[in-house]
C-alpha cells in the first residue's frame, strides 16, 4: 500500500502544484483568450490532483481527505518534480520577485505535458484499476495541454526575434530540471515493482522525439544539460515550493476546524 500511496502522491502533487501555478495567470494573461485557455489547463490539473488525492485518502483510511493531503502536509512531504514549483520567470532566489513571464509557462507546460502524454498512456495499464481509470481521463486532458503548449512554443520560437530569444532563455533555464524525470526515486521503483507504476526511462526516447520535433519546428536549440539533478519527488525542493505552499495553505491552516 505504501508504494501505491507514495507514487500516487507524486502524481497528485505534480498536478496540484502545476495547477496552482497555471491559475496564477487567471486575470493576467497576454490576451483574454489565453486567460481562459490557461484556466482550463489549471482546472484539468486540479481535477486530476483531486482524484488522485481521493484515491490516496481511500487507501490510507481513517480521517484522511483530499484537503488534508493538499493543505496539511509540509514542503518536505510534497513529492512533485521541482520543475513544476518554479515561478513563471527565470532563475531567481526564493524570495526575489518578478513579473509572470509567458515563455516560462509555455516551456514548462510543454516539457511536462510531453512526459505525461506518454506516462498517462502507459498508466492506463496500471495494476491499480483506479489509477488506470484516472490515467485514461487525464490522458485526454494532457493531450490537449501538449497541443496548446506545443503550438505556443512554435509560435514564440518562430515568431519575432524578441520572442525567440525569450523562449530560448526559458528553455535554457528549465531544461536541466527535466533530468529529474529519468532518475528513479525509491517510491517509483517500488511502484514499478508492484506493477502500479511505469518505468519512465522506457518513455525517454519517445519524449526526446516529441521534444526534438517541436524544438526544431520552433527553431529552438535543445540545451545540453548536466550537473545537479533536482530531487523534488523525494521531498527535497527548491526555495520556491515553501512560498507556494505558504500561500496556498494559509487560509486552511488558519482555520483548521473550518468547513468550506
Amino acid at each position, binding site marked *: 500500500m505504501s508504494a501505491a500511496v507514495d507514487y500516487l502522491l507524486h502524481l497528485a502533487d505534480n498536478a496540484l502544484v502545476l495547477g496552482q501555478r497555471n491559475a496564477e495567470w487567471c486575470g*493576467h494573461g497576454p*490576451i483574454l483568450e489565453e486567460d481562459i485557455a490557461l484556466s482550463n489547463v489549471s482546472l484539468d490539473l486540479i481535477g486530476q490532483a483531486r482524484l488522485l488525492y481521493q484515491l490516496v485518502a481511500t487507501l490510507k483510511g481513517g480521517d484522511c481527505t483530499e484537503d488534508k493531503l493538499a493543505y496539511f502536509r509540509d514542503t518536505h512531504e510534497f513529492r512533485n518534480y521541482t520543475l513544476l514549483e518554479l515561478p513563471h520567470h527565470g532563475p531567481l532566489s526564493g524570495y526575489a520577485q518578478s513579473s509572470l513571464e509567458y515563455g516560462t509557462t509555455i516551456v514548462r507546460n510543454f516539457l511536462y505535458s510531453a512526459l505525461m502524454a506518454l506516462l498517462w498512456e502507459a498508466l492506463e495499464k496500471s495494476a491499480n484499476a483506479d489509477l488506470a481509470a484516472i490515467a485514461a481521463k487525464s490522458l485526454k486532458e494532457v493531450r490537449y495541454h501538449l497541443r496548446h503548449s506545443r503550438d505556443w512554443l512554435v509560435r514564440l520560437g518562430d*515568431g519575432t526575434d*524578441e*520572442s525567440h530569444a525569450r523562449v530560448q532563455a526559458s528553455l535554457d533555464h528549465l531544461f536541466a530540471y527535466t533530468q529529474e524525470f529519468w532518475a528513479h526515486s525509491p517510491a517509483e521503483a517500488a511502484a514499478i515493482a508492484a506493477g502500479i507504476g511505469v518505468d519512465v526511462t522506457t518513455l525517454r526516447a519517445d519524449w526526446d522525439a516529441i521534444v526534438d520535433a517541436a524544438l526544431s519546428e520552433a527553431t529552438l536549440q535543445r540545451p545540453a544539460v548536466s550537473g545537479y539533478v533536482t530531487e523534488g519527488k523525494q521531498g527535497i525542493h527548491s526555495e520556491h515550493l515553501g512560498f507556494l505552499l505558504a500561500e496556498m495553505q494559509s487560509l486552511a491552516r488558519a482555520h483548521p476546524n473550518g468547513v468550506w
Partner: protein
Amino acid sequence: MYTQSFNVPDSPGAKTVALAPSSEDPALQAAFDARIDADGRIEPQDWMPEAYRKTLVRQISQHAHSEIVGMLPEGNWISRAPSLKRKAILIAKVQDEGGHGLYLYSAAETLGTSRDQMLDGLHSGRAKYSSIFNYPTLTWADVGVIGWLVDGAAIMNQVPLCRCSYGPYARAMVRVCKEESFHQRQGYEALLVMMTGTAEQKAMVQDAVNRWWWKCLAMFGPPDADSPNSAQGMRWGIKRVSNDELRQKFVDATVPQAKVLGVTLPDPDLKWNEERQHYDYGQIDWAEFWETVNGNGPCNKERLATRVKAHNEGQWVREAALAHAAKKKAREMKDAA
C-alpha cells in the same frame, strides 16, 4: 455579469449627456424609431443613429471592462482557496468572467470599434467600469458574498438586457446569463457552509456582508431622478428596467435570503412596508459612489495598473503570434507557387 447602471459618462465629472436631436436622414430615423417602438431588433448592418451606436459602444464596452476588471478581486483568492473543490469552482467562475468580457467585446466590435480601441479607453482611464470592483477582497468570505450579492445584483440588471434592442448585445447576454446561473448559487452555498462552521467563520461572513451590502445597492446606479441617460436608454430599448426598480427588486429578493443564511443586513432602516409591499431601505452614500466611479476609490489605481501591466507584458506574446502566422502564411504561399 457585471453591468451596473452602466451608462455612466466616460469622461470624469460630466454627469449628463444631452439627448442630441438627430440631424440625420429623417426617413431612416423614422424607420429606426418604428422598429424600436415595435420592440424589433437592430442588427449590425442596419442603419442606426450615431448617438445610439455611441451609447451602445460605451455601455457594452463598460460592461466588458467590468467583467475583466471584475476578475481581479475574486482572482485575489484563487491561490488561497481553502479547499480544492472551492479552488476549482473559483477558477471556473473567474474564467467565466473572462469569457463574458470576451463575448461583450465581440458584441461591441460589431459596432465598428475594435477591442484594442476599447482596451485603450480602459487603460488610459477614460472608460469606466463597475465601481464595485474598486473595493478590496479582504477575506475568503468576500468571495462568497460577491457571488451572492454582487452577482445577484448583476443578474437583476442583466436578465432584462437579454431583450435589449441591439441583437448582438442581447445574444451575448443570453449566453452570459445562462453561464451566470451558477455564480450566485455557488457564492450563497459557500456562505451557507461557512455559517455551519466555527465562530470565526461566521464572523467572517457577517463582516463581508457588512462591507459589501451598500456597495451592491449603489451598483444599480444613481436614483432614476438623477439618471438622465436612463430615459434615453429605455427609449432605445437598451435599458429595460429603471435603476430604482431593479434596486428594489434586489432588496426584496435578498432580505429573505439573508434570513436563511443567518446574517444581518447592515441597515437599521431596512423594514417591510405593508403599504408598498416592498422593503424600505436607508440612504445610499452617493458621494462615495461618485468618488469611486471617478477614480478615487480604495483600489481604482491598483485595478487599472494591474490590467495595464498584463496588457503591456503580453505585448511580445501577441506580436510573436502574429509574426508567426505571417511567416507560416508566406511559407504556404511559396510552397503553393
